[in-house]
């Protein structure tokens, strides 16, 4: 169990301890979100490390991670709470058999916490064993439909949920909320308004190399440098989907598995599928760009 960081530098340290190499912009917005108890809204391309931030927070702060993966049609019953209908039905039958006829009494009994099935958001409003609020990750919010965003407004603004039959459940200490989106659609301003916003961009070469060293320690130094230079070169091309950090790490790990110490055009061609996920992109890069990029990477390495 670790206390929340008290400065931007402490936040950077905290992320560093969790193996997350962050820039100062991200550390600032994260620190503010923790300090001001505001949800953190992270937007960016797939694979730049948005979800990872929540995981690292949970690990370094020693708080449980509650994850809500969003999808189209996600509704309150799967995200917030549901009633245990079968148990309720049995309870009604028992009450009936016992001769209870008072409707208010039955209703009060049936709609009590005993019959409440808690889903991620309701769980996140309860303190954990040692009294600290958990980390709530609302992942890929853009996958859910607009109607779902309205549910979230109350949770995000006041850390509370209203259950019609039961009343309002309010967290003693609001959870640490991280929301991620890949921008497959725009999120409503009302929701963004309640959060601190940050665009997570692809890292620069230096930071990407630092990430690679942390995450794939098995990769040789030359290979790591070349991999980063190659991927940075790819991102400068006009691709449909540029490779993210996750792809860089996968690729470096794959090349390390193949016992490669440096890049050569054949290996690159054979393993492009790890980096690029669209056939058009692969074809485009394979037809002519591979040789040029590898050459450039080698030249840079020789010069630097």
């Amino acid at each position: 169990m670790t206390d929340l960081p008290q400065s931007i530098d402490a936040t950077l340290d905290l992320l560093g301890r969790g193996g997350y190499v962050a820039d100062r912009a991200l550390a600032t917005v994260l620190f503010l979100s923790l300090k001001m108890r505001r949800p953190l809204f992270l937007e960016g391309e797939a694979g730049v490390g948005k979800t990872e931030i929540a995981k690292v927070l949970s690990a370094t702060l020693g708080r449980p991670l509650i994850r809500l993966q969003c999808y189209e049609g996600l509704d309150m019953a799967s995200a917030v709470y549901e009633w245990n209908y079968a148990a309720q039905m049995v309870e009604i039958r028992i009450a009936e058999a016992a001769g209870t006829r008072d409707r208010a009494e039955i209703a009060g009994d049936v709609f009590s916490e005993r019959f409440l099935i808690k889903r991620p958001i309701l769980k996140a409003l309860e303190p954990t064993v040692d009294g600290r609020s958990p980390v709530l990750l609302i992942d890929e919010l853009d996958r859910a439909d607009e109607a779902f965003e309205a549910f979230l407004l109350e949770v995000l603004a006041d850390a509370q949920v209203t259950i019609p039959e039961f009343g309002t459940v309010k967290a003693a200490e609001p959870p640490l909320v991280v929301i991620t989106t890949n921008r497959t659609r725009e999120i409503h301003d009302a929701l963004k308004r309640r959060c601190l916003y940050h665009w997570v961009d692809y890292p620069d070469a230096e930071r990407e190399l630092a990430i690679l060293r942390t995450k794939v320690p098995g990769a040789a130094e030359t290979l790591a440098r070349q991999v980063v230079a190659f991927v940075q070169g790819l991102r400068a091309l006009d691709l449909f989907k540029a490779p993210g950090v996750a792809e860089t790490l996968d690729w470096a790990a794959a090349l390390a598995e193949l016992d490669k110490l440096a890049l050569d055009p054949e290996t690159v061609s054979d393993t492009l599928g790890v980096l690029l996920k669209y056939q058009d992109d692969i074809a485009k890069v394979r037809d002519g760009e591979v040789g040029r990029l590898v050459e450039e990477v080698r030249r840079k390495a020789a010069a630097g």
Partner: protein
Amino acid sequence: MSAPGADPWREHRLAENVALFGRVLRRAGLPVGPATVVDAVEALIAAGVGSRDDLYWTLHAVFVTKRDHHAVFDEAFRSFWRARGLVQKLIAMLSPVAPPRAPAEPPKAGANRVAKALFGEAAADRVVEKPEIEIDARMTFSQKEILQARDFAQMSADEILYAKRAIRDLVLPVDRVPSRRKVATARGREIDLRRTIRASLRSGGGIIPLAFREPKTVHPPIVALVDISGSMSQYSRLFLHFLHALSERRRVSTFLFGTRLSNVTRPLATRDPDEALAACSAAVPDWSGGTRISEALRLFNRDWSRRVLSGGPIVLLITDGLEREGLDGLARETDRLHRSCRRLIWLNPLLRFDGFEARAGGIRAMLPHVDEFRPIHSLAAVADLCGALDGSAAERFDPRRWLRQVA
């Protein structure tokens, strides 16, 4: 001068300066309300200001809610805080060592808007270079991008009449798809347990009247890509009225393209149709200029397709397809667009000619990749567009028919 030991934040009028800065951002087009300013002050107090960077990113965290706003914020920050020497004052207060001054940089994106917001119209020209008319050498058929805000909000009486009639006749009978959300129904296949339990409690649990639910059906969203080059502008104008009417009933994203691609979804959402179209024309600099279809589709596929093509939309592409260069690219981009939507419907005013043949290279490049090929040749054809949306494609709109004729 305040008494020694007074709150340093108060002494330097932090709140006032942040409020002023917020107003500058608002005038520059960022959605900054009073609550945001309060947040910003809170954030500054929470973070403390250790360096120019920290001040920058702290304010950034609160004021910027969209990636597109970053450039404007950046410019506003540089102009506002440096001009007043406030950063230095704030940092000097909290740090024993004065930070080095940043060297002057060339003007960046958003500079013009921010300069206007800060100093009014008169000063704007001092900060940025004079606007130039862009001349694109690659365009052979329309060499100049005509930078004008043409007033297309003024429709003729006939146009209004037809548009209104089309809107009144707008019936979308089978244009619905089931969503994953459920709604309560009187009868159906799936039992709604929650309502059933509640209903049974009403009778003290004695009777259990079954309640049902079923998937809700919704209109699929519509994405419209509208060509506003010179030859197309009169059709586009009317078509925008149609889209405006449609957007009151379902999710519609609208893009205009000529020499550039502009997203006019927000301007078009203005309630009054004339105001909406005026806002659109104000937002688009290249009305009635040339067109580069291939480039427009490429930009759409790259920058927007992932953002607006969720939920399986119907894409309406309104263009005459008269592209003369980069036909490979055109075919590839149309194909990409086709693969990422529910249905791709091409509306082409050239079909108004009886002897129309799909001989033009651009048209032949695009035709194999669309699901329907329809005319929008007359005002009455607007009403016909409703038919284009209901999914019952007639054989005469099959694009392969045109390709067979040419072959």
